[in-house]
């Protein structure tokens, strides 16, 4: 930043310098001739030709040598024994090097939207929202002590994006806060990025659920995602218990 500011200061002062200092002007003209004159153009052209010939040679070398070396090295790599080095931290046993997890790719016909691309509106009548947008998805209609809903729209064209419902439920063990997101297209959204990469799985009737559970201060945070009738559901549950919680809310959702 400082460097940029200094450059601007220099440029600001430049007109005064050129008007009052003839020697500097002559020097600038001479430099400009060296840099932009006919000889300079020829020099640049020669350098360009040299650079191009070197680049083409490099590409040819890589195109021939690299595939051959990869072909030979592949077999050697797979035969290497596990690294027997000791570890300072407690390690259960040497593990093979895990494969890097690729970032999840959105469906081929879907669009990824950042939160900044969207605007939100409160929803007082979810049935009407569904009718107006030709949607058919499940949401919590009973059991919640209190609930509120919002619809997100693409700011650019006001097209419908997804639905959110915030609820809390009370039972004899305490209460759960439940956030439900429903996407009814193949589009993907920043808001549900934290659900990517879930690997634990269970079935609730015929619904395949991917989930994760984390604990903090006697509370569990469950994130789960599943698909049903073309809708993608994202469910975040915070509460004291985990036993049967996913089953309970997935069943309640589709009841």
């Amino acid at each position, binding site marked *: 930043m400082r460097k940029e500011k200094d450059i*601007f*200061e220099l*440029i*600001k002062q*430049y*007109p005064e310098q*050129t008007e009052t200092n003839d020697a500097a002007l002559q020097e600038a*003209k001479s430099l*400009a*001739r060296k840099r*932009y004159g006919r000889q300079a153009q020829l020099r640049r052209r020669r350098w360009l030709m040299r650079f191009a010939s070197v680049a083409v040679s490099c590409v040819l070398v890589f195109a021939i040598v690299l595939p051959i070396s990869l072909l030979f090295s592949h077999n050697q790599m797979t035969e290497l024994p596990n690294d027997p080095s*000791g*570890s*300072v*931290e407690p*390690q259960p046993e040497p*593990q093979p*090097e*895990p*494969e890097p*997890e690729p970032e999840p790719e959105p469906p081929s016909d879907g669009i*990824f939207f*950042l*939160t*900044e*691309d*969207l605007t*939100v509106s*409160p929803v007082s009548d979810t049935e009407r929202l569904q009718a107006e947008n030709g949607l058919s998805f499940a949401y919590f209609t009973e059991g919640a002590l*209190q609930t*509120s809903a*919002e619809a997100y729209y693409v*700011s650019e064209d006001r097209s419908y994006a997804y639905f*959110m419902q*915030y*609820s*809390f439920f009370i039972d004899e*063990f*305490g*209460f759960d*806060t*439940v*956030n439900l997101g429903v996407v009814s297209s193949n589009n993907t959204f*920043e*808001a549900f*990025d*934290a659900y*990517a*990469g879930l*690997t634990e799985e269970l079935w609730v009737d015929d619904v395949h659920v991917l989930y*994760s559970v*984390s604990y*903090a*201060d*006697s*509370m569990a945070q469950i*994130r789960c995602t599943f698909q049903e009738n073309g809708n993608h559901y994202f469910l975040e549950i*915070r*509460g*004291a218990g985990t036993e049967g919680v996913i089953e309970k809310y997935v069943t309640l959702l589709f009841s």
Partner: protein
Amino acid sequence: MVLQKKRLVSLALAGVLAASLLTPCFASRTSASAMAYSSEGPAAGSSELVSYTIEYDSYIQNNDHRRVHVASYNNKNPDHTNSCTAVAGTNIIGTYDKDYPNLIPNFEPGAINGSVYMYYPNVGFPAVTGLMDTLYDLMQVNQVAPGATEQQCLNGLSQYVTGKGYDISYSSVYENSTTVDLDKIEDMVAAGKVGIIFCSKFNYVYGFVFNDDAKTVRVSKANYNSAHAMMIYGYIVIDYYKDGQKFLSETYLQATSGFSTADKGYIKLNDYLTIESAYVVNISE
């Protein structure tokens, strides 16, 4: 010759013009108190999703200074825009209302759940919506410029709290532009307090997905190039080990996003972040 002279003059004029256009930007950046904090969701063109995966043999997560239960609301008034300071203030007041019940009269922000006090979720309680509207006015959001400045935000918060019969003060936890004073944050957590942070650019971590079988963690993260205020309430440190050696240590400041999604997540310290100021908010009888 004439052409070259014209080029030089044009270059000089363009430079002067660029300098005069850019100087106000630099000036406003150097004055944190004059900067307006306005985002309640990221502005168009200002954010980028930068989630990443870390491979490890083992990891240790230090939660000693983590706080789990705080209030986290969003702005549900469609007429109110650029309201991040009012949302941060509402989260702070909502969290403190558990111990200082006059802050939000006739409202209980949560209940004992199992063995801990847990805040109710963001379901649009009229008392909370009313509080946010009041803070929006007291902080003079959008009255002078889009959003509110740090001074407007803190003045509005003070005005509200003192009006309810409590004392309020602010203790700086600023350390530098990419981190806060973690010792002071520890004291804040131990004392059951929360704070506020003002950033001219920031990152936000929505969550972690640990895969113990594959020994990977996916960090869901986005960077935002916009001014934003958030409630802060603790921090965690995650150390990652490979071949017996710690190869990575990441520190995350807990923060409520203040976005429309009312997330409870983290700001990754020493990362894509320009902290202008950060305070513990002290409220007392």
